[in-house]
């Protein structure tokens, strides 16, 4: 029988564990934005070598399952003498993985701008730096906001995988609780509910931003 009290009781500690889920996803996307912007710049640069390197970076990270990436990074960091906490390793992995997708989001948005936008700026004599800073990037950012929010939603879900390296985020916390209460159905459904609430909120935020910035 499905026990509603058990379900409700497990919501509280899982909500508490959600702060790690959010920390990993938000820190992950922040790191992903930084690296992703660099990767995108490399992919659009005039240097052939940089373009190639960017393409390989994206192809590798998109081709390898996140779980495998996570274990590779997690186990190989100590080899480089980096004795980092599991949490940092998790954030770095999630961020690196997100960078591949974010660089593609940027690239798509930049390519989606009509050519005339830059031409109008070039025609009045703006420098290439100003054309990027004032005309292309602000518009690309607005265009890609919904996709970036979507990426954040993906990261919230993907962060469940860091449970395998022992971080007590929602999924790991629910495993622990299922083991002590012997009520996996209620506990895991409670976990699912919390993920759902987080993601529905993010999706609503995304729609709001999209609506507000639609000029």
């Amino acid at each position, binding site marked *: 029988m499905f026990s509603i009290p058990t379900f409700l009781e497990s919501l509280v500690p899982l909500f508490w564990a959600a702060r790690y889920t959010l920390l990993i996803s938000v820190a992950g996307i922040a790191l992903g934005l930084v690296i992703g912007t660099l990767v995108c710049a490399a992919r659009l640069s005039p240097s052939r070598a940089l373009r190639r390197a960017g393409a390989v970076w994206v*192809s590798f990270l998109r081709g390898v399952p996140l779980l495998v990436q996570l274990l590779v990074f997690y*186990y190989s960091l100590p080899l480089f003498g980096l004795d980092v906490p599991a949490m940092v390793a998790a954030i770095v992995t999630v961020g690196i993985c997100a960078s591949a997708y974010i660089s593609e989001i940027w690239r798509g948005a930049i390519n989606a701008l009509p050519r005339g936008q830059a031409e109008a700026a070039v025609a009045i004599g703006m420098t290439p730096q100003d054309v990027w800073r004032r005309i292309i990037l602000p518009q690309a950012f607005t265009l890609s906001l919904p996709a970036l929010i979507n990426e954040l939603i993906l990261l919230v879900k993907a962060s469940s995988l860091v449970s395998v390296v022992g971080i007590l985020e929602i999924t790991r916390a629910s495993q622990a609780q299922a083991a002590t209460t012997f009520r996996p159905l209620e506990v895991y459904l409670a976990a699912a509910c919390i993920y759902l609430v987080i993601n529905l909120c993010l999706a609503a935020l995304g729609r709001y931003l999209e609506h507000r910035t639609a000029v």
Partner: protein
Amino acid sequence: MDLLQTYGPALLRGFGVTVLCWALGTLFGMTLGLLIALMRHYGPRWLNWIIQVYIEVIRGTPFLVQLFVLYYGGPLIGLRLDAVPAGLLGLTLYGSPYFAEIFRSGFRAVAPGQIEAARAIGMSEPSIVRRILLPLSLVSALPALVNFSIILTKETVILSIITVPELMYQVSRMSAETFRFVEANLVLALFFWGLVETISRLGRRLETRITKHLLERT
């Protein structure tokens, strides 16, 4: 070399399970997705509403948690599944809303005039679906279908966490016994990279072939 002798067969079996799970999961997921898309297209409003909730729930929760609910929670409501069938069911459910959305936008890409023309000559609704709607929408939906099928190959590794004996599971076992965590996972990463790149390439070729075929026939 000893390692390969000891673990080779297990890895090969693991790869077989991965391919099986992926192929069946994609097939079932696509089928369920198509059914969902058709129900949304033709079904009554209330059904559409239920489907909407189903889609939001599946898309809003991690695949891993869905698997836990199915595999560990299932027995509590009498759903006793072994790891492999549970994993397959999980993949099917997980993929279905994405496939459904792909089909749905494919349907929308078909010009209304095409359907009206078929109705005007008196074709029945089922044959309109079979002969006009599906072939035409497939043309525009194909790249996304191929793309999502490729994404599903990567999701299969998550099945290892509920002890489905696929490739990642075997690699984890091997690395736990030999303590070669880095090498084992790195090789697995490279393997997946190669696999995904290869099927992407094959997928693009298949796409152009099928598109050509569909357009020439219709």
